[in-house]
């Protein structure tokens, strides 16, 4: 039964809200009081007394408007310009050589369409089709996993609810190839399960099939669904449920009220999971490849690995990947157009938890616990068991455990590079270099990502917002190797060298490459929490005399501080392990940790590579622990109680 709704709960369309958006607040809150107060239809002004604002003269208001517009567009322009420089230029360079291969010496034609037609043929098209359906199925599964874990840990009295969010973040840190490798170790004939007499040919065949591909991709991308959905659930408060209950609505009605409020988060989750799965190469090159199941990214890698390299063909497949991002974007645009989903304001009340019965509590706790045991256990086993054995391959198959591999990592005794002691960055080695680069990348990403997220969730999208959004989502759908090669095309131009601006194979360009992969994802992750932060918070600060930056610092940052910290950590970790861009852009002699590990593995020393993986993981967890601990100790308590992703930091 649908409850009867009070006037305040009546749907309001674009018309009335658009009226509230005009004018723009001048410095110190002048100019908009009346409009803002009228916006919600009942004139209570959000509790910050905006309706008391003084109304200036028309001329002053006009000047104020123009100044604001200039500032507004300057900011937008700057943010989009940064994104264009970091993402659009290299991606554009990579794509333009599909049609004009001669531009970068990648062919003899000045114009051709043959590369594009090649992408629609044979296994490349099949790969794209496979990637599309796998990504769609993964989206649905992840909504259930991510939404389920988010709701259970945030809105019920399930056991271990302080642990599960951390576990989800842990899952986010696991590379997909490691996850696939872990499943391989578990289920193969001489694998871990067979050591306990549990080997099953059926399970082995299921894992090495499209089902296994969907399973591992779902586990790997579930954190993205969790993050976007939990941010929304955390900010939701219980006022919506209470409002429905007060008006006589049952559980079904509550569900019907709450789910639409979560629509942006659900769509954000779908979009992010879709493009992350489309771009994945870790599973495509392991489980999928061995199952004779071609995916789109394999086609790109194969074309690029050919001799002579077929960059134009890889570019053509990339165009199709980029275009695929338009699917979730169109869905999102259709559903959320012209509506506001801001729910986190000065009046948000903390949510209440649904009290589970004893049986329900234990059974649900077991299910969630089992999920994480499986999701994290398999890759953990792959990395950890492998690192101790003399020869990787049969982790527990009678090999003797040894710490010698760790000796190699720390001392570099063998006449071989990439040890912590050696490494090109002097005595610091790849682990420290990667930590530094990742920290710089994460810091810039958080700031730019927040600015981009704010632009993306604006009620009235700016001139470039739609194009920017497609660029952002599309670039996430592209595997890292495309960005890496695009960076070489765009930033290693002969004319630049003649002018003495050689950026290629320098650390700044490597960081730019990292930013190009991290900003799109993080701004997309932050869209949920940012959309929920109500404008009234900033207005309150401005009304009380704070300048824009000061209001941002004192009213806005506290609310999103936890989000920023967590996004910083995710970016740090993802950058730390990034391989394809590092391989193509790292300055000779200054290898990153991923390049070092890859070299060890490819030079038939996988056991040393695995040991370095464990050491690097340790370094990564140390940084995460220090930052989370620091935030807990140093940040005011209130900072930790507001905004999305509440139960982690």
């Amino acid at each position, binding site marked *: 039964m649908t409850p009867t709704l009070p006037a305040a709960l009546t749907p309001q369309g674009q018309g*009335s809200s658009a009226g509230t*958006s005009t004018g723009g607040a001048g410095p110190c809150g002048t100019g908009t009081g009346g409009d803002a107060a009228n916006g919600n239809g009942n004139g209570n002004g959000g509790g910050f007394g905006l309706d008391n604002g003084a109304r200036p003269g028309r001329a002053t208001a006009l000047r104020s408007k123009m100044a604001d517009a200039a500032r507004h567009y300057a*900011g937008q322009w700057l943010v989009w310009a940064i994104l264009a420089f970091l993402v659009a230029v290299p991606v554009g360079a990579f794509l333009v050589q599909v049609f004009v291969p001669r531009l970068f010496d990648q062919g003899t034609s000045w114009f051709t369409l043959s590369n594009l037609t090649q992408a629609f043929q044979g296994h490349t098209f099949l790969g794209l089709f496979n990637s599309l359906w796998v990504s769609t199925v993964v989206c649905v599964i992840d909504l259930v996993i991510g939404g389920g874990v988010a709701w259970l840990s945030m809105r019920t009295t399930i056991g271990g609810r302080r642990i599960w969010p951390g576990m989800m973040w842990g899952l986010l840190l696991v590379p997909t190839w490691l996850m696939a490798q872990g499943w391989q170790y578990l289920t*193969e004939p001489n694998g871990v399960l067979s050591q306990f007499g549990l080997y099953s040919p059926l399970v082995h065949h299921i894992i090495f099939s499209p089902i296994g591909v969907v399973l591992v991709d779902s586990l790997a991308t579930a954190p993205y669904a969790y993050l976007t959905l939990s941010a929304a659930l955390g900010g939701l408060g219980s006022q919506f449920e209470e409002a429905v209950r007060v008006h006589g609505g049952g559980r079904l009605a509550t569900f019907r009220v709450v789910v639409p409020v979560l629509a942006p988060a659900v769509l954000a989750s779908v979009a992010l999971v879709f493009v992350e799965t489309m771009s994945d190469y870790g599973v495509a090159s*392991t489980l999928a490849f061995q199952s004779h199941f071609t995916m789109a990214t394999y086609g790109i890698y194969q074309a690029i690995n050919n001799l002579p390299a077929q960059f134009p063909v890889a570019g053509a497949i990339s165009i199709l990947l980029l275009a695929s991002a338009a699917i979730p974007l169109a869905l999102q645009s259709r559903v959320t157009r012209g509506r506001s989903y801001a729910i986190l304001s000065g009046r948000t009340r903390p949510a209440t938890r649904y009290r589970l019965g004893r049986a329900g509590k234990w059974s649900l706790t077991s299910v969630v616990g089992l999920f994480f045991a499986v999701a994290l256990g398999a890759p953990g086993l792959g990395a950890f068991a492998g690192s101790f054995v003399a020869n990787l391959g049969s982790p527990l198959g009678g090999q003797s455990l040894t710490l010698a591999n760790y000796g190699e990592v720390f001392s570099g005794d063998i006449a071989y590079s990439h040890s912590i002691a050696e490494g090109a960055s002097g005595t610091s080695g790849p682990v420290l270099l990667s930590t530094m680069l990742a920290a710089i990348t994460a810091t810039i990403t958080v700031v730019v990502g927040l600015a981009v997220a704010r632009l993306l969730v604006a009620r009235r999208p700016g001139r470039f917002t739609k194009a920017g959004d497609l660029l952002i989502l599309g670039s996430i759908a592209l595997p890292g190797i495309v960005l890496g090669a695009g960076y070489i095309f765009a930033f290693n131009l002969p004319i630049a060298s003649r002018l003495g601006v050689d950026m290629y194979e320098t650390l700044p360009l490597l960081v730019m490459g990292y930013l190009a992969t991290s900003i799109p994802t993080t701004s997309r992750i932050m869209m949920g929490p940012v959309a929920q932060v109500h404008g009234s918070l900033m207005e309150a600060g401005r009304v009380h005399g704070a300048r824009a930056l000061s209001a941002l610092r004192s009213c806005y940052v506290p609310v999103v501080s936890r989000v920023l910290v967590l996004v910083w950590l995710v970016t740090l970790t993802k950058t730390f392990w990034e391989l394809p861009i590092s391989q193509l852009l790292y300055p000779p002699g200054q290898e990153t940790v991923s390049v070092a590990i890859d070299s060890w593995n490819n030079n038939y020393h996988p056991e040393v590579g695995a040991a370095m993986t464990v050491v690097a993981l340790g370094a990564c967890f140390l940084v995460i622990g220090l930052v989370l601990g620091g935030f807990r100790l140093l940040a005011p308590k209130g900072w930790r109680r507001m905004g999305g992703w509440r139960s982690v930091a």
Partner: protein
Amino acid sequence: MLTHLTHLSPNAGLPRGDKTTATTKLAAAVMTAAAMATTGIVATSATVAAAATTSGPTLVVYSAQGYDSAETTAFQKATGIHVSLDDDSTGPLLIKVEAEKNNPKWGLLWVDGATAFASLDQQGLLMKGWEPTVSWNSLGKQAVPADKSYVPTGLTMAGTLVYEPKEVPDPPTTWQQLLNPKWANEIGMNDPAVSGPTYPFVAGMMNYLGGVPQGEKFYEGLNSNGLQVNLTNGNTLEVLEAGIIKLALIQSSAGIGAGLKTHGEIKVKFLDPVTALPSALGIDSKAPKAEQLEAEKFIEFVMSAQGQQIMQSGDPTGDSLYWPVLQGVNPLPALPPLSSIHVQNINPYTWGAREDTVNTWFTDNIVE
């Protein structure tokens, strides 16, 4: 119609001023942070570059060899020439060389596979007409190209038969036996489109069997017999050790190295014939003359007694397991004498030019 409930929040539809001014400031803060960070890194890079230019131009070496770090360190110590080493897998290095075509940054390339060098030569990317003054043995003489565009530094073998004797007491002795149902679902190899050393193996079989169609028939037969294709040597070795397959067709150095590390649990058999896979050094045709001269000095150093000794000690369970191409240099004891193996050489220029079509065929018909 409950979808619009979100409007119950007060002040939905915020004035633009605050938010956008904040965005401007935020963006300004970003640029400042980015500038600071970049300046910091540039300073670091500049320091490195300054240190590098103390003795002439820096020689940039792109190498996939396990002993390259030891070799470049020793060379730098012996000559004072600063070397910048980009050590990576063959795949990413060749991608970089190809992507840098219009503005190359490398001076010297050191990877396995004469077909790869032949392809680069045909694209005009290699300096021709120079070779070190050394005493080649018969293997070396066969491996030096007519136009002297690259210099062979050693030989490994492509597509050797690697197995565990306790699992396979009687391994196949001919290539045709691999098609026997006895080995159904037990054979693995690498994807030639991804693994550098595998294309010469595929091409070698085609060469041995009389041509591309005959070779395709052989691989179709292997595929019908349940061939498992993995990405690289390491992956194929892994599935062998995991018991998923019993016979791995991989590069000799990977197999012999695994045999050393497992104390004989893994063995390598050389079927008749086995295809030679030279490692080679090539000089960038577009590099500055001074860097090309340094590259020549580096090659001479590698081919010297000291350089060969470093190649053989730098990675004893990996790339050091090669057959030398110089007179007076003996292979490591773990390698069988060449007199016991029938080695075939393929024309890298003929087969290098076919790499694209052969790999595409392989992907469409075997990997799929």
